[in-house]
């Protein structure tokens, strides 16, 4: 990430150093339905934080509120110590937060490689003017992006798909491509919405390994997941959401044994 992008006020707030995402008293209503009800939590830098909760607990709504897809009715969201409440998604991304979607999004008429190249942020070639004033710079950056894309595809063992049409690969592979592409945006914190939903067990393990590897390289993760085994294995801490607000949070073992969580969510079977 270029330094200039983050010259905000991370010096003024020292306590924010360790907190990459702060959600404070967030509220959202849809008509009569309260989807997010005074939700408050923090995500610490360098963690893989899990967000679990029963269906309808408002997990996806929180993702949409954090990433700027919805405007909250109340409360605030801070990314890297900067208040991004009500900001547009691209402004939130400017502060280092990128998200993925639950159902993989396929790009028609593009190869996997082209679809990957949408990932890098602030490409000079995305400025219409620069295409004509400094084509050299555009070309240079494009070469770099291509090389980065190739490298990441190799790391994900997806390079054999590079020139396949993006619409022709399986849903599970697309999930991996999405994660790989999100990494090209060099996020500080990455929000993953059900990364292994509909992914078969083998790819599931691949995904877990990749997430762990990227986390060790410094990316913070916040992930929604229904697969308890996956989330309990990977995430620490785990935040439990119920009826739009935070029921509890803590390390996976404590969450799993908490009676309130069992009552509201896990049930006897697990």
């Amino acid at each position, binding site marked *: 990430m270029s330094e200039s992008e983050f010259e905000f006020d991370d010096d003024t707030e020292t306590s924010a150093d360790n907190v990459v995402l702060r959600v404070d008293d967030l509220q959202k209503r849809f008509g009569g339905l309260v989807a997010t009800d005074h939700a408050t939590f923090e995500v610490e830098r360098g963690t893989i934080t899990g967000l679990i909760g029963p269906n309808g607990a408002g997990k996806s709504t929180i993702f949409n509120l954090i990433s700027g897809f919805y405007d909250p009715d109340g409360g605030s969201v801070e990314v890297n110590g900067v208040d991004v409440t009500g900001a547009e998604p691209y402004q939130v991304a400017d502060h280092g937060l990128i998200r993925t979607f639950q159902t993989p999004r396929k790009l028609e008429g593009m190869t996997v490689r082209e679809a990957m190249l949408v990932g890098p942020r602030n490409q000079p070639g995305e400025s219409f003017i620069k295409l004509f004033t400094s084509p050299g710079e555009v070309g240079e950056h494009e070469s770099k992006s291509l*090389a980065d894309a190739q490298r990441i595809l190799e790391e994900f063992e997806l390079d054999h798909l590079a020139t396949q049409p993006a619409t022709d690969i399986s849903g599970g592979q697309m999930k991996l491509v999405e994660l790989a592409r999100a990494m090209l*945006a060099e996020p500080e914190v990455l929000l993953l919405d059900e990364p292994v939903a509909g992914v078969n067990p083998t790819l599931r393990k691949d995904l877990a390994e990749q997430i762990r590897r990227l986390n060790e390289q410094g990316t913070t993760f916040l992930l929604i997941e229904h697969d308890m085994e996956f989330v309990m294995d990977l995430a620490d801490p785990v935040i439990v959401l119920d009826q739009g607000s935070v029921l509890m949070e803590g390390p996976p073992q404590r969450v799993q044994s908490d009676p309130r969580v069992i009552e509201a969510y896990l049930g006897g079977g697990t």
Partner: protein
Amino acid sequence: MADASTDGDVPPEADADAEDDPGYWASLTVAEKGVVAFIGLFAALLVALLVTGGLGPAYFLYIVGLAGMYALLSFGLNAQWGFTGLINFSVAAFFGIGAYGAALMSGSTSPIAGGFNPMYGLVVALVAAAVLAVIIGIPTLRLRADYLAIASLGLAEVVRLVILNQREWTNGSAGVRGIPSFFEGWPVLSTFPEAMPGLEIVVIPGSPILLETSFWSALLNVALVLAFVGVSYFVLKRAHRSPWGRVLRTIRSDEDLARALGKNTYSFKMQSFVLGSLIMALAGVFYAHLNLFVSPGDLDPITTFYVWVAVILGGSGSNRGALFGGVLVVTIREGTRFLNELQVPVGISPVRFVELPIDPAPMRLLLIGVVIILVMRFRPQGVLPPQRELIWPSSVDESTPKTPKSGVRESKAGDTDE
């Protein structure tokens, strides 16, 4: 550029193909061959008509000018619909703004300014189109695709009503006359048509082809439209395969995905909308100086749909498709005129036509309607859809170590760069 031969592990048949060097023709898809054949036949027909005197040379050039104009309009719409997926049904409004901008600045009967050098008209027209694009874009570009269609058609109607009814600005239904040629006031070019001698070329004895002043001024118009088309094509081609164009294509496919990746999609959509509108206005400016008269009738919504036919026929998202579609639509438009008319229209532009025995308007409407239905039924992706991987040209070769094992469907080996 057959780089397949540099790769060791292609199957033997492919190797053999590469060594045979099948040449340009064999490398084309069926549709491309059809288009090339069509263009060849069409050109032959035109030459035949020219030579036999069935088509006056000035009128021929007038049609070439119109074809260039439609190509420009198609480029403009392609930049909006083809690239970004914006359903703009206000093409006629931007065309009209361009035409009126030029006419009101340079026309002698202009109620506002008038008499200015056409270059000022060009600038004013483009600025006005950009302003209008932003005004229409602000409320509509946040809407769903089909809402944009309806809203833009409605707003185009507002523009037409204003031009029709604000007589003190536009002369209302009387239109603006006395528009000079675009090169008026330019050194050499302004007097070029008069300075050229009248030529008489005899190909078939008894029917000489006369090249008079009207021919030379029409030739200048063609040069002008070719310049406009050339510049637009260059700009769009570069934009289309750039990261900028890639964001637009992402928006077309899935806008939320583009947003999640940190793209300011509203801004990109606005840029695409304004760019397309500017090219449409350019077509309008050219039209004013081609026809030398503009009226509110030029803003009829039918123009919008002619251009839509051109773009979907050519292949959405494909610049060469838009070019082809634009030419084809003029053929339909002028062809219906031509079919009903046995006499050759003559005259200095504006070219005037004899009253026709049958009203060609509904026939043309019918034809356009049928073409739309048939294209959507049998070839919804258009005749020349885009089919190559679009990556900034200079970057592809150096950064991709491996030759694609299998490319984008329908694409040909080594064709990432044309």
